[in-house]
């Protein structure tokens, strides 16, 4: 026991003396965190929906680079050979190495978590489950790291091997790129890598239903981890002179490979590969809707006045200080406004029914497209007319029917919407011709929409939401259809709901993006859509964005169509 503790303590101490190792273990996961933070800055809740991915990246890096690199370098220089002169068992050396690595992984994970919390992420929903899931994922990847350490004969080889596993897993394994945005074949491939199971298991503990809800992922990680550890232990070699290729235990390499294949096959056999709208992703997001502390006041897919910095885009956070005049009030209908590539809707003080007395740091930029950031401050806003309410506590309209024009003028601006040419809520110019294939799809949608169940529900707000999903879902999935669907959707909305009502309804949806039902997403295949998983929260945000874009057109604030 003393030997185990000594050995673990020394491994840790040496790790903390090695600057490169520190860089890999701590800086690298933080860089990923920062990248994700920037990449997903327009999401309602900071990073919470990507914690699984982030933690997985950290564990993968530590277990598949850090661990085997340390092991191979110690073995190749003959450090282990010296250990072997002492009565040290293979199990003793391996368990202490693994224990030290696990400690490093946990500390790096805590660092990521702390950084995320500092950036505004809410606390994970199931902290105890998260510890269990983290341990299980570490086990799975450490097993992999052990196998890699036995295979590679030198440090460059282990690094190359690491890249061969790390990069594919990151890109098509469901870690850095969301599974839902991967093509079908990649989703099938990802089922054979441990990455996606790791992400799902961890994610379930952050904003999902906990580890109990991801039994298959737990099983997959256990199988993969056990196979790796057993093979790593059998193929273990003490000495640089025992080359991998010359050893008799190579056949054990098949064990981890068989485990990966088995997990993939199980996943295929139980139909877990394709992420359809009805599967766990949606379930997770549904859960997320209620589990994460939603900002009081309705989040709206809106942006803040220019020149400010921030990251989220809730109404609450985008609020301007009370003593500040509305930055860009909507001009009255009919007022010609210079076409702006990035109209934005920003809620005005009081929109949430609360006094805006917090020094909000609203965000400046939603899509990151260059068109969104004005080079100069925006043209001075029209003088606040009588429609501009005093920035004091003001009740929000109680129902969509009570929405007045002044509500719209007060709560929405259209200057900083994501560009129609961007990747978030794009709209193709009227003159642009879709490809024949997309055209065919559009015709099918236009024809199908009036008969589509969700487009015929009696409540106009829900009906409008449902119809807007037809534009929002292709946008989330970034299919070719995304730029052309909005036109068909806008036509259908204008056909289905009288203009005056439609304006109120769209305003209502913009201010209440997380309300209402989203089951329409599951009925999209009736309009010829492929059955694919969609992040509901994201789809809701896009619905609201398209609502504002159409609203702006209807009230003349945005020129177009």
């Amino acid at each position, binding site marked *: 026991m*003393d*030997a185990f*503790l*000594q*050995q673990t303590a*020394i491994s840790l*101490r*040496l790790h903390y*003396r*090695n600057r490169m190792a520190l860089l890999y273990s701590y800086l690298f996961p933080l860089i990923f965190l920062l990248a994700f933070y920037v990449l997903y800055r327009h999401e309602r809740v900071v990073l919470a929906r990507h914690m699984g991915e982030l933690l997985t990246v950290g564990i993968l890096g530590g277990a598949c680079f850090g661990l085997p690199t340390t092991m191979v370098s*110690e073995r190749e*220089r*003959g*450090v282990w*050979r*010296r*250990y*072997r*002169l*002492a*009565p*040290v*068992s293979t199990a003793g050396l391996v368990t202490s190495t693994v224990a030290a690595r696990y400690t490093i992984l946990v500390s790096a994970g805590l660092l990521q978590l702390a950084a995320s919390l500092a950036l505004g992420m809410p606390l994970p929903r199931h902290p105890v489950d998260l510890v269990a899931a983290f341990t299980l994922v570490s086990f799975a990847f450490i097993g992999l790291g052990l196998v890699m350490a036995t295979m590679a004969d030198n440090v460059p080889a282990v690094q190359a091997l690491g890249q061969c596993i790390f990069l594919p897993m990151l890109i098509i394994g469901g870690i850095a790129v969301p599974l839902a945005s991967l093509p079908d074949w990649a989703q099938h491939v990802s089922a054979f890598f441990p990455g996606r199971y790791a992400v799902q298991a961890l994610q379930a503990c952050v904003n999902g239903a906990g580890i109990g809800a991801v039994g298959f992922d737990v099983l997959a990680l256990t199988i993969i981890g056990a196979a790796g550890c057993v093979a790593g232990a059998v193929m273990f070699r003490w*000495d640089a002179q025992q080359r991998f290729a010359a050893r008799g235990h190579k056949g054990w390499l098949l064990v981890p490979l068989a485990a990966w294949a088995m997990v993939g096959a199980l996943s295929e056999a139980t139909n877990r590969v394709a992420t359809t709208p009805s599967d766990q992703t949606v379930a997770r997001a549904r859960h997320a809707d209620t589990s994460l502390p939603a900002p009081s006041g309705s989040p709206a897919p809106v942006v803040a006045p220019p020149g400010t910095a921030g990251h989220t885009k809730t109404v609450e956070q985008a609020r301007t200080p009370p003593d500040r005049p509305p930055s860009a009030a909507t001009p009255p209908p009919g007022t010609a406004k210079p076409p702006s590539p990035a109209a934005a809707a920003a809620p005005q003080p009081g929109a949430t029914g609360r006094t805006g007395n917090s020094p909000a740091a609203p965000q400046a930029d939603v899509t990151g497209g260059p068109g969104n950031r004005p080079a100069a401050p925006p043209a001075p806003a029209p003088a606040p007319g009588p429609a501009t309410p005093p920035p004091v506590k003001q009740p929000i309209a109680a129902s969509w029917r009570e929405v007045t024009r002044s509500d719209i003028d007060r709560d929405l601006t259209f200057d900083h919407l994501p560009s129609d040419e961007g990747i978030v809520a794009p709209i193709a110019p009227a003159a642009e011709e879709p490809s024949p294939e997309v055209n065919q799809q559009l015709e099918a949608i236009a024809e199908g929409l009036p008969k589509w169940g969700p487009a015929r529900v009696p409540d106009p707000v829900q009906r409008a939401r449902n119809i807007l999903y037809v534009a929002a879902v292709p946008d989330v999935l970034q299919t070719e259809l995304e730029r052309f669907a909005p036109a068909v959707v806008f036509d259908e909305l204008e056909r289905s709901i009288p203009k005056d009502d439609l304006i109120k309804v769209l305003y209502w949806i913009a201010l209440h993006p997380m309300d209402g039902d989203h089951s329409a997403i599951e009925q999209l295949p009736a309009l010829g859509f492929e059955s694919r998983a969609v992040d509901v929260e994201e789809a809701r945000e896009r619905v609201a964005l398209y609502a504002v874009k159409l609203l702006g057109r209807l009230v003349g604030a945005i020129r177009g169509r």
Partner: protein
Amino acid sequence: MPTAEPKVVVRDLRKQYGEVQAAQGVSFEIQDGEIFGLLGPNGSGKTTTLECIIGLREPDAGAISVCGIDARRHPRDVKQRIGAALQTTSLQDKITPREALTLFGSFYRQKSAAAEMLERFALGPKADAPFDTLSGGQRQRLALALAFVNRPELVFLDEPTTGLDPQSRRELHAEVLRMKQDGHTVLLTTHYIEEAEQLCDRIGVIDHGRIIATGTPRELVGRSTARQAVSLTTTPGLRPEDLALVTGIEDPVWDGDRVRFTTAAVSRSVAALMTLVEARGVAITELQVRKGTLEDVFIELTGSALRD
């Protein structure tokens, strides 16, 4: 343990790497308190033999008993009781001697305190310096300290002075002699004849994976039939035809004014040479007579000189 029983018994040890027979039936014994040297050129099988005994390698055949324990069946029991320093000892770059000694001490049932070992091996000033800042001599002393951390009955040193500077080499020799005084049993391998001659009570000469002679250095030289070597320099030099008159001179080699030769009857040859020198009226500047050495024995036994 009764002193009558040998500390190490190796019987017919065999080890093959692919086509290469590294050990082809090595057998020897080491008595308690003895310093035993395995002397042989590189590739003779001495390191393989040592590594099989200390449990770094699994022999193909043969019996090894260390301190009365079957080393092939209970290698970890053997490791508890022996200490070993390999040709080179690598540790992690940033580990300090104190940490290394504490860590390795934790592997054993019996151990000496790190501070004691640091003191004994003169590592005090470097106790907390990272391994990568230690000199070659300091690393070798740390290797020895690690070998002694479990108070071993038996110490194995594989080529302990290879690559050391003369000063470190002298220090190491002193350390080995101290081990002998302390009553340790030591097995060392070396390809330096002087080292074997100077340090070892008994030597096993090994070549091509076999022990070809065993005995004390004196016994080995005594057993030799080697001739004595004479080297003579005069001013001016003698002429070869003069030397031909002297009896008993074999294989003369001329090098300017100097001539070297061997002889089986050194007194008679040298006396005749003196007479000749006086007759020719030349002055002797150097006269050297060398007895047969372990090196001569070695060449006699193996048919080749030791390669450094």
